């Protein structure tokens, strides 16, 4: 497995701490050099700033006229630190999957920046973009559609090497693929099998092996276990944690299952209707949530423990998520919020540490986009 291991030099040996700051590389070669430089543990490896993605709504057949836009992601900012797992939770339509696509540069951002080691990847193209793609990989939700049914497992996991031939010499590829199969807990002899011969959990392992092939630094996981059975979910989660330690990976873990996100994440961001509602460490978010939406979300999670069923406060939200094409003014959550006042309709709350907690040394002092942020434990039985 030696080849697959990242070089883990001493932390202070990192030569380019300054380059982590947002420096625009002049030439493509400089950009590639910056992208390939290592980042030390605990430094931000990905910095997202005011990221926006609007999908235009058009009318007319021949002359298309824009009549509006679906504001899938509407100005979100966060950092991903090297070696950590950042969980992103939210309900369907909150824009979390669009964030994944933007980080993968599979969609062009409408506005905002994504800095990867100082390079704004939303503006890169050509060789520099290809270098970024080598370092940021993805694991998909549906193991049944994410593998090409006409290709063998060996071809699927080996495809990254065909696209980036510099990573592995041709003669070495078969061995590398078998190593990868072994790493994700599959029999290396399965190299000539086809995806439909495997079960969901095994297919997800194949998808993970493909993601690992190029020794990436970041893996974006979009609902990687939600299509799997409970007993298989735990296997895949454990595998992902093991791989993170082994290869010093940073994960962006997007999911709707709050229990799984807590388990795997170091920090968690809660999204609602294209905005980040609250972000903090797992303890801050789960044990000391200050945003009403986070509280409602957490309180709604059915916990497999009937004894906790009585003691927990449940906040049942009324109504549905508004359309992202026409979000409410001010705070987006106000239409379903029990605390909403007039101010919420006129003034948009910013994602910041609430004033009342700023100077206090409390776990409630984390970024929350609410005018009336207050702590409320909804997870533990009273």
């Amino acid at each position, binding site marked *: 497995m030696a080849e697959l291991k990242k070089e883990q030099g001493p932390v202070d040996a990192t030569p380019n701490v300054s380059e982590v700051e947002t420096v625009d590389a002049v030439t493509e070669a400089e950009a590639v050099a910056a992208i390939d430089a290592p980042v030390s543990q605990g430094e931000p490896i990905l910095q997202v700033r005011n990221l926006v993605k609007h999908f235009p709504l058009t009318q007319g057949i021949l002359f298309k006229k824009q009549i509006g836009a679906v504001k899938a992601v509407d100005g979100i900012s966060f950092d991903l630190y090297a070696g950590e797992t950042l969980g992103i939770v939210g*309900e*369907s339509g909150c824009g979390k999957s669009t964030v994944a696509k933007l980080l993968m540069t599979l969609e062009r951002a409408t506005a905002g920046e994504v800095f990867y080691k100082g390079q704004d990847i939303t503006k890169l193209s050509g060789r520099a973009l290809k270098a970024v793609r080598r370092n940021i990989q993805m694991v998909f939700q549906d193991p049944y559609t994410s593998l090409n049914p006409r290709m063998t497992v060996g071809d699927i996991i080996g495809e990254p090497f065909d696209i980036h031939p510099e990573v592995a010499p041709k003669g070495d590829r078969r061995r590398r693929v078998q190593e990868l199969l072994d790493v994700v807990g599959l029999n290396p002899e399965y190299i000539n099998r086809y995806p439909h011969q495997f*079960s*969901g*959990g*095994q297919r997800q392992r194949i998808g993970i092996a493909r993601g690992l092939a190029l020794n990436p630094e970041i893996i974006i996981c979009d609902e990687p276990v939600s299509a799997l*059975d*409970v*007993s*298989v*979910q*735990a*296997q895949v*989660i*454990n595998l992902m*944690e093991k791989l993170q330690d082994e290869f010093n990976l940073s994960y962006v873990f997007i999911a*709707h299952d*709050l*229990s*799984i996100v*807590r*388990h*795997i994440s170091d920090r968690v961001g809660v999204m609602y209707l294209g905005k980040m509602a609250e972000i903090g460490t*797992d*303890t801050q978010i*789960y*044990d000391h949530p200050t945003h009403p939406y986070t509280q*409602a*979300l*957490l309180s*709604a*999670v*059915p*916990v*497999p*423990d*009937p*004894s*906790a*069923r009585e003691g927990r406060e*449940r906040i*049942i*939200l*009324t*109504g*549905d*998520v508004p359309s992202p094409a026409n979000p409410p003014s001010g705070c987006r959550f106000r239409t379903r919020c029990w605390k909403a006042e007039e101010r919420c309709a006129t003034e948009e709350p910013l994602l910041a540490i609430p004033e009342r907690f700023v100077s206090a040394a409390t776990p409630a002092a984390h970024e929350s986009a609410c005018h009336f942020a207050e702590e409320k434990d909804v*997870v*533990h039985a009273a």
Partner: protein
Amino acid sequence: MTTIDKTAHVPAPRESVSGDGPLLDVRDLHVEFHTRDGVAKAVNGVNYTVSAGETLAVLGESGSGKSVTAQTIMGILDMPPGKITQGEILFRGQDMLKMSNEERRKIRGRKIAMIFQDALSSLNPVLTVGYQLGEMFRVHQGLSRKDAKAKSIELMDQVKIPAAAARISDYPHQFSGGMRQRIMIAMALALEPDLIIADEPTTALDVTVQAQVMDLLAELQREYNMGLILITHDLGVVADVADKIAVMYAGRIVETAPVGELYSRPAHPYTRGLLDSIPRLDQKGQELYAIKGLPPNLTRIPAGCAFSPRCPKAQDICRTEIPPLAPVTEQDGLELVGRGSACHFWKETIHG
């Protein structure tokens, strides 16, 4: 081959309200599918009962046979490839498998209704919601168009769809996922059935909406004193609403228990493994416990206990003899009402 004993060994935790036996009694049901790779034994001797006002949760992973059982009860199993090889399904004491198609059709919808996971594909996209709801009354009760419409609005109010009168002429795609699932519930309720089978009713919904829909379902069940079979893979959803649980694995019921008991003291290694493998919301855990291996291929179910290849407690006997669903007792032999475990070593599992 040993089959699971009759349910008589495992008395229901709650007597039926009317006192004249259970609403539904499934006895020793076997269902097979004929596929190219051989015969897939999807259901291998399932027994369960549901009484009026009672919620039975059938818990299992994909391929456990939980949905196939439900489809067989509803009479909507695709045959072929499906085939019922053995068993009885007694509805109020009458075996539905021996009834004529006409008799079964009368029970379906009127007495037993079903709610599906995917409400969008279960509703006809080219007909208005009002028409589809009203159809139930027009066809089954012969109401006029006007009366049927009035009844439909009433029904939509009952499942708490806001502005029901205004939305009755909307099409399914104009509703959100949660609202569509409410419409499905309304359709199931239309003829005031005695029993509702809900197959993963909230799996496709968001957490906050899930809670709303589950609450609604529980509330309506109480109001109408219906029996409810809730089929799910989600241990969390079950904990909130069920009275008793049947855990299925590879086409068999491996454990039955009242809801509280199952979570606090599982008597089957599979149940225990499942409970241990879900991460907790209220604390950050260490490495998750993972049941090793994968669920069996139904065309080649292992000999003996189907769970034995994955079981940490498996002994030689587990690989040769199928364990019957035995009544579970306290250490001193005191009977635990409604509990059963199909494990040779249930004593060690629950008390050990």
